[in-house]
């Protein structure tokens, strides 16, 4: 990416949504406590390949965290799906 041609830069800081602040705090708490490493998160994001640029910044980091936490076995796909269903229901 560095050194490639690119378009005009939007120099306005658009800040962060609440969920992005929370997602950032989650990722940051986990890296500070060395539960996961920044390098493995970056690898998981870069493994997105073509899709890397299709996702927004915090979508990409959330995807990467999912991949790495599953790899480490902190929870299973099934547990995650069940928890997501529970959270989704709470918002309805």
């Amino acid at each position: 990416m560095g050194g490639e041609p690119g378009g005009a830069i939007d120099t306005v800081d658009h800040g962060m949504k609440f969920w992005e602040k929370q997602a950032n705090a989650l990722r940051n708490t986990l890296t500070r406590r060395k539960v996961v490493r920044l390098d493995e998160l970056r690898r998981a994001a870069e493994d997105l390949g073509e899709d890397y640029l299709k996702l927004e910044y915090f979508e990409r980091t959330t995807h990467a965290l999912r991949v790495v936490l599953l790899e480490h076995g902190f929870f299973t796909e099934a547990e995650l799906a069940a928890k997501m269903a529970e959270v989704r229901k709470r918002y309805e």
Partner: protein
Amino acid sequence: MSKHHDHDHHDDPSFDHGPPSEWEILSRAMQELMIAKGVITAEQIRTRMEQFEAELPYRGPRVIARAWTNPAFKQRLLENGRKACEEFGLDMEAEKLVAVENTPQVHNLIVCTLCSCYPRALLGMPPTWYKSENYRRRVVREPRAVLREFGTVIPDNVTVRVHDSNADMRYVVVPMRPAGTEGWSEEKLAEIITRDTLVGVTLPKAS
């Protein structure tokens, strides 16, 4: 009891407008699972969110104001950024910090072409543009053009040096103290030291 009692949740920054995206649901689910498994606590997440808002963004200006007023501190900051900040009472979170000084001959600018590595312990969260593809692509190729988009013109006889950060090594720019700030206190100086001046995309001004 509050005169703001009729405000609805649209004014509460703890909520985003509209229904949550699947990304938000995923993120929240992972957070709850990691708390349930005892790996982290809800309190740690809350504290970290508060630090990012209320504490971290203001550290960098304080450190640089000290460097402007105390030459011995500036020397120590340039020699070992992390150690100098610890002496200042700041927990630098175990990353190497390299302070790069602007001079009449050299202007410094920082980027992370890999992702978004940034001196968060000094400046909080990076602004949107720092994380953008266009900034990361172009700043190492045409820094002067990028600087012009931020309204900053660096004369041709001044070298522009771009520093590419990574997970273990972060940079912070030590800008030149502007004329017209003679006799100012550290507190007053810190007010004109903005995030953008410490990334190097703008220059501090005395007004």
